[in-house]
């Protein structure tokens, strides 16, 4: 009897599924359920650093003067073209005409000036205020022309304007963007069910190409097991930055899914406190670089999906030089260097923030360093504690961390940064780089900077975090790489 009942239930279920399937076959779907790991605190990228903000609103809802293409190139956004003066200090932007915000407010040079002035104001809470620091003055020439004068030539200025923190906001709505974001993008904000999902819908008055999708639902599913279940059950169509590498092989075997292992900008390093003994000794830092087997760490911490790096620069970025062979795994050489430096029985604390790469990587690094006579104590901490103790307090020996900001060679030139590197030669090199606009000269200087960092073995450079994207095999147009931590869904479409 029970069996018959079960059969009847199955038949009913099958009928309803067929019904749904046939109605869906008429036209390709226009909705998308995408998984994200963390819920953003709010939706204003000009007031918060959380990557989750950019992952939702960048390019979809908010647009900047320039924007980043999937390959990391800088392309026109709300500025359709620009000219740079011969001295590299004056940028004149020609803005797109007929652009309006989702609330109907027009976008013009006055709005652009408002946005840039707001970001660099004294009371600004922009998380990337440094991007706007080179700006000396912003002038409205006419409604479609904006002139920005810089204090000094800044080679990365157009790149800076493409960041989520530099998107254009309207004076009318800027104050409410945290909960009711109003941008110029192809999608507008519809609903935020706190703790659950954020919905964007197509903007019918978009100035550019109409996107194929009608609606995007970002579902917040942080637990790796729950994310796996949601993909497998079909509750999610895409998880562009999947949180658990160990599930990737299962998705790869399943024809329902497309799996793309791409690059992020996450340079994962064992950061060393260069001001603290004995890490102030270059021989000790080099010994650590020789004593860590990157391959084993990559295997254990990222399931073998990551690419090794030899300096603080991502392989896909302009001017990269391959320095991964500079310190091959060589425990004997490491021991000899430690001996030469007069260091024996070295005890050190390795601070580990929550991500898997750090916690798992830390175990392996500790085991490897033990072999060269360094006794490592692992100290797991939360993000909040990492930020206050390590990053601000600089109270640490070693820590494993991924620096996700693209092309951030500048951090080694900062006076008060937690590596405590403070090297005048590097600072001079970086100042020269920052003031250079010519692409070829920049590449040469970027190469020099990488070599200097590797040579000084400032930190132990380990690997580039992979971007593990999983989505329905019928979806096109998702980004394989993550030159910025964003999910630009403007080109995503379902195949028939």
């Amino acid at each position, binding site marked *: 009897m029970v069996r018959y009942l079960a059969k009847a239930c199955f038949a009913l*279920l099958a009928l309803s599924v067929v019904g749904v399937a046939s109605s869906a076959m008429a036209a390709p779907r226009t909705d998308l359920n995408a998984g994200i790991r963390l*819920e953003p*605190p*709010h939706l204003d990228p000009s007031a*918060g*650093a*959380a990557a989750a903000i950019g992952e939702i609103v960048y390019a979809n809802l908010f647009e900047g003067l320039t924007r980043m293409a999937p390959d990391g190139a800088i392309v026109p956004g709300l500025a359709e073209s620009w000219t740079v003066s011969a001295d590299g200090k004056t940028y004149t932007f020609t803005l797109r005409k007929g652009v309006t915000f989702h609330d109907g407010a027009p976008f013009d040079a006055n709005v652009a000036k408002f946005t840039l002035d707001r970001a660099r104001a*004294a*009371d*600004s*809470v*922009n*998380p*990337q*205020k*440094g991007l706007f620091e080179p700006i000396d003055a912003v002038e409205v020439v006419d409604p479609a022309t904006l002139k920005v004068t810089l204090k000094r030539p800044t080679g990365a200025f157009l790149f800076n304007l493409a960041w989520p923190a530099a998107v254009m906001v309207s004076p009318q709505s800027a104050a409410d963007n*945290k*909960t009711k974001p109003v941008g110029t993008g192809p999608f507008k904000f519809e609903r935020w*069910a*706190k*703790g*659950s*999902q954020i919905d964007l819908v197509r903007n019918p008055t978009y100035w550019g190409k109409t996107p194929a999708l009608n609606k995007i639902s970002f*579902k*917040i*599913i*942080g*637990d790796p*097991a*729950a994310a796996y*279940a*949601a993909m*497998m*059950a*079909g*509750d999610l169509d895409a998880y562009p930055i999947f949180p658990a590498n160990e599930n990737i092989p299962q998705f790869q075997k399943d024809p329902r899914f497309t799996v793309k292992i791409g690059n992020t900008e996450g340079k994962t390093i064992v950061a060393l406190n260069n001001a603290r003994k004995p890490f102030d000794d270059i021989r000790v830092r080099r010994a650590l670089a020789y004593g860590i087997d990157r391959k084993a760490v990559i295997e254990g911490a990222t399931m073998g999906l990551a690419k090794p790096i030899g300096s603080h620069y991502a392989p896909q970025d302009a001017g990269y030089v391959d320095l991964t062979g500079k310190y091959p795994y060589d425990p004997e050489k490491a021991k000899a260097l430690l001996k030469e430096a007069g260091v024996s029985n070295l005890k050190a604390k390795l601070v580990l923030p929550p991500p898997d790469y750090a916690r798992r990587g830390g175990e392996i690094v500790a085991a490897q360093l033990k072999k060269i006579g360094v006794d490592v104590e692992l100290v797991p901490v*939360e*993000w*909040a*504690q990492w*930020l*206050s*103790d390590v*990053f*601000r307090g600089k109270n640490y020996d070693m820590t494993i961390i991924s620096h996700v*900001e693209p092309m951030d060679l500048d951090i080694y030139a900062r006076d008060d940064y937690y590596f405590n590197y403070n090297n005048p030669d590097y600072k001079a090199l970086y100042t020269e780089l920052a003031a250079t606009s010519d692409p070829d000269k920049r590449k040469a200087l970027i190469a020099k900077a990488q070599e200097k960092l590797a040579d000084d073995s400032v930190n132990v450079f380990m690997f580039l975090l992979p971007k593990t994207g999983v989505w329905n095999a019928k979806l096109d147009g998702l980004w394989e790489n993550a030159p910025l931590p964003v999910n630009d869904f403007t080109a995503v479409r379902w195949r028939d």
Partner: protein
Amino acid sequence: MSLLWLARRGLGLCLALLAASVIIFVLMDLLPGDPAEIMLGTSARPDTLAALRAEMGLDRSAWVRYAEWAGGLLRGDFGKSQTYAVPVAELVGERLVVTLPLALISLCLTLIIALPLGAWAAARRNSTTDTAIVAITQLGVAIPNFWFAMMLVLLFAISWRWLPSGGFPGWDAGPRAALALILPAIALALPQAAILTRVMRSSLLETLSEDYVRTARAKGLTRGEALRRHAFRNALIPVLTILGLQFSFLIAGTVVIENVFSLPGLGRLIFQAINQRDLVVVRSVVMVLIAFIITVNFVVDIAYALVDPRLRGRG
């Protein structure tokens, strides 16, 4: 139930709440980590940090902040979330409509399963059924609810696709919302039901061996009648105690279960708020939960008195 008894209980309740508020405030303040720093991340400049701290009111002394918070609580004002920039009351309200139904459904499921099963096992002591129930509940006590939850998802969401794997569409989605709570409620209820079944069984067995039950039997009642009319009510005292404790466990369990099922409930709110150092939210929500649990225990105390008149004089 004398008024004096109630007044004493009420005073104890207030003192417990006051103590709880001080402990929560001090603990949260001692916790390392700066909320402004977490919001602004690693690229923030010192002047930006200072601007945000001032905006959040973090630059004032601990006394001022405690007085403001506790005073606000008394007026029913929970403050404003530092990260979400909305009133905490609104956040809690949004989350309670998920967590409270979830906890209540699980509690009902627990009772529906545990009381009859425990009584049934006790009535058939040492039979095969009894042994089987004891063995199964032993297993139920040992299984962690998050593992059980994952097994449920694997079976009902991935293999059979009968129920959603997680998430919550909101109550305006009607039946789909109720469907979304089925698996989480079962995952929460079954381990609790296993505990309660065992308590019910042993408590009943104990009362069944009491003199008054023997007397009742001697008067000619059958074992079943004696159990229903005399033993059952007496056996409920320890069950009530455990149930009061279990409600606290249920609320704590929602933190785990809500994460496994990605439900936007109170438990996940606390979890996120702790990670983001949204002190205002953590303090207020924990305070609400403590108030809730203390009140539940207060109600359980009153329920004892109702079930057992002898306990009214004590306390």
